[in-house]
């Protein structure tokens, strides 16, 4: 398929459709309205269903119902809306229902602003809702990558019966880039024999999609199963990009939009003789701890850059384990750092005047 110039949000919508998603439930919030708008146009053309829910709470529960009855389903929102979805996400995680959830992060806390931010990292990667669960969290840094992640996200979700989150920011949703929709590498996706579709096929057990286990013995079985699956996902799905790290003396840690700007800064720094590279988590859960811990043995220091007060930096420090200094530069308020600004920070770290 030829490349097409598309806005990030629309590419996300089209990618979902290309991946066989025919149901979308959402509630308007800036800066991601182009996703539901796109789906409301496209899904009826594909014989699917777009429904604007009365709230994010309802939207995520519609996802629970539709995905629980066997369909590929997506919802999207931005930070405050994702907060409202957390209850449903926790239930979906426990009931082991695959779906794709997109969060185009905006600046917060509270109502915050509508500019890009990365303040939902903790929420996305450490749980977010109540209880002990994880989502697979994919963090795109280009429009193309966002499209790829949505398409593969459905396969990952179905393979592991787990909700997948695409964690972008307002920037990724708004920029236009050429994009093509390439099916991900084929996986053995198990059939959804567990789905509630009406019990006409008595060769399968009666479907019960549930997250209530009053007996500790039963709850433990479910949690053990989840834990085992999380370990398997860590082993199979952890993804990271290393950019100019081979001879690097300093490493930048960044994801999403920030990583993209960091790359330009790194090119500039290299031109000035500073040996710096980038380690960019592609999956922020599972987090690529190993890439950082290995680098810690050979580099002089790390600089973590985020659009937050410092969230992913905790994982980087966990990986580096005190072996080398880990500096932090956070850009707040909805501002995005320029390449030159990051270059300044690199120089400061490398003590180049």
């Amino acid at each position: 398929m030829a490349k097409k110039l598309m806005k990030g949000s629309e590419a996300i919508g089209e990618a979902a459709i290309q991946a066989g998603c025919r149901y979308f439930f959402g509630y308007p919030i800036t800066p991601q309205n182009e996703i539901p708008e796109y789906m409301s146009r496209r899904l009826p053309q594909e014989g699917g269903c777009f429904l604007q829910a009365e709230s994010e709470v309802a939207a995520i529960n519609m996802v629970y119902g539709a995905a629980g009855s066997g369909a590929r389903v997506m919802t999207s929102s931005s930070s405050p809306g994702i907060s409202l979805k957390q209850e449903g996400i926790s239930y979906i995680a426990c009931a082991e229902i695959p779906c794709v959830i997109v969060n185009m992060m905006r600046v917060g806390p509270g109502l915050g602003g509508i500019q890009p931010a990365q303040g939902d990292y903790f929420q996305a990667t450490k749980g977010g809702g109540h209880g002990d669960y994880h989502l697979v969290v994919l963090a795109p840094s280009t429009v193309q990558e966002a499209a790829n992640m949505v398409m593969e996200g459905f396969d990952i979700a179905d393979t592991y019966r787990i909700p997948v989150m695409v964690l972008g920011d307002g920037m990724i949703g708004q920029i236009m880039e050429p994009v093509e929709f390439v099916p991900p590498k084929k996986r053995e996706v198990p059939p959804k024999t567990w789905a509630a579709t009406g019990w006409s096929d008595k060769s399968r057990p009666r479907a019960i999609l549930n997250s209530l286990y009053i007996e500790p013995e039963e709850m433990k079985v479910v949690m053990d199963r989840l834990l085992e699956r999380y370990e398997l996902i860590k082993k199979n799905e952890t993804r990271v990009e290393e950019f100019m790290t081979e001879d690097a003396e300093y490493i930048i840690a960044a994801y999403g939009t920030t990583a993209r700007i960091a790359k330009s800064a790194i090119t500039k720094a290299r031109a000035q003789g500073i040996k710096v590279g980038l380690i960019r988590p592609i999956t922020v859960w599972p987090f690529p701890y190993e890439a950082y811990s290995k680098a810690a043995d050979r580099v002089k220091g790390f600089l973590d850059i985020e659009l937050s007060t410092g969230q992913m930096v905790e994982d980087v420090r966990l990986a580096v384990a005190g072996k080398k200094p880990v500096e932090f530069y956070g850009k707040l308020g909805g501002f995005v750092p320029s390449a030159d600004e990051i270059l300044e920070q690199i120089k400061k770290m490398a003590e180049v005047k």
Partner: protein
Amino acid sequence: MAVVFEKTKMLTDVPFHYCPGCTHGIAHRLLAEAIEELGKEDEAIGVAPVGCAVFAYNYFNCDMMEAAHGRAPAVATGIKRVHPDKLVFTYQGDGDLASIGTAEIIHAAARGEKITTIFINNAIYGMTGGQMAPTTLEGQVTTTSPYGRKKEHCGLPIKMSEIIATLDGAAYVERVSMHDVPNIIKAKNAIKKALQYQIAGKGFSFIELLSTCPTNWGMTPADALEWLKDNMIPYYPLGVKKEVEL
């Protein structure tokens, strides 16, 4: 030997966990029988609430999903949009439906979602031990209205059937009671009719069943039925509240 009575196949053999004299069990049987009589056993998909009926997925012998507190109508919406030809129902208590899940039920009804909701109004939060519900009657003593529910403090009980009936998407709305046999028979007919409205694709259908919670009302099952008749029916008048042409 001739079989004169058989339990409906729409109920599993799992014994109900409900308290003695609780009307949840009756409501389950009425709904299950209605589904079976309509020949829809293999096409039914149910959504259980959070409340005493949370384990409904163990009892209804069809595919089931357990929803978060109050969210059953949204879950049922998702199911029905994927499977428009299936018979989708929610079974919800008054805390679940008339308090935490008010938005979900109102909007499912307003959209004319082709699902059927069975609403168990027992004027109390049964599962959590007898706290005040939005349907608790004025003056009624509960664990969180120990001096009796006061209008000045928290208003008067919500009449959900009347509210739902105002919405264009609602096709059939009826309030029935389970306090005696004639009313139980009426309740069964109402449930069956509601399901028929769904099958005919007419829109949202809603049956409110006035129910008892002898345990948290602090009454014997017989006294509870009497209390329902004397106190709930005057405030919650029985009858059809909305009926489009079938």
